[in-house]
């Protein structure tokens, strides 16, 4: 079965640079979520989209922005990168916003040097 696809798998950037992470949800899934996970931490919610509109917002820094496109894929744009942004970034998708499971991709490992 098709899963959530994230690219790139690994990304190395320097401080103050920008990065763009991409997420392709499971076919027919209309909701996308972004999470950040530091080492030994639980995933922290950043932002979500339903039918291309932002549906909920968590601890996403103002330096970050995201959007969901007409084909339902989503991109997380990160600017003025800081060392503390180094983490695993996961995207998840679900069918609808209510009681249906979120399925996660294998993440993008971002390293800021």
């Amino acid at each position, binding site marked *: 079965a098709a899963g*959530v696809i994230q690219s790139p798998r690994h990304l190395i950037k320097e401080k103050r640079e920008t990065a763009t992470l991409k997420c392709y949800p499971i076919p027919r899934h209309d909701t996308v*979520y972004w999470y950040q996970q530091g080492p030994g931490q*639980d*995933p*922290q*919610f950043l932002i*979500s989209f*339903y039918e291309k509109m932002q*549906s*909920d917002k*968590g601890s996403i820094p103002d330096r970050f922005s995201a959007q969901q496109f007409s084909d339902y894929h989503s991109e997380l744009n990160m600017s003025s990168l800081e060392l503390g942004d180094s983490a695993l970034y*996961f995207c*998840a998708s679900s069918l609808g*916003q*209510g*009681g249906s*499971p*979120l*399925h*996660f*991709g*294998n*993440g993008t490992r971002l390293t800021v040097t």
Partner: protein
Amino acid sequence: GESVGLHLPTLSVQEGDNSIINCAYSNSASDYFIWYKQESGKGPQFIIDIRSNMDKRQGQRVTVLLNKTVKHLSLQIAATQPGDSAVYFCAEKMSARQLTFGSGTQLTVLP
């Protein structure tokens, strides 16, 4: 803010024994709960879910129990296998809001 948490950070069990991983949640308005398994370098993998109108749900070798009175969730794994070694997270959701993860439990299966 309200959050979901786990009682134990680590759990070691003998291969073939049953495992029980516990979780306490504090948001009484949460109506949907999910257990995830996460292996190193991978994303959280869906195991089983339960809605607040149920108190038990069974899957293949796994059972989730929900006690809304004391706001407690547990995951039972039958006949634990080496491949079950991973970090397990419970997560809770309220309607269309975000899914909130609790702190994970590292399950280690001993030979």
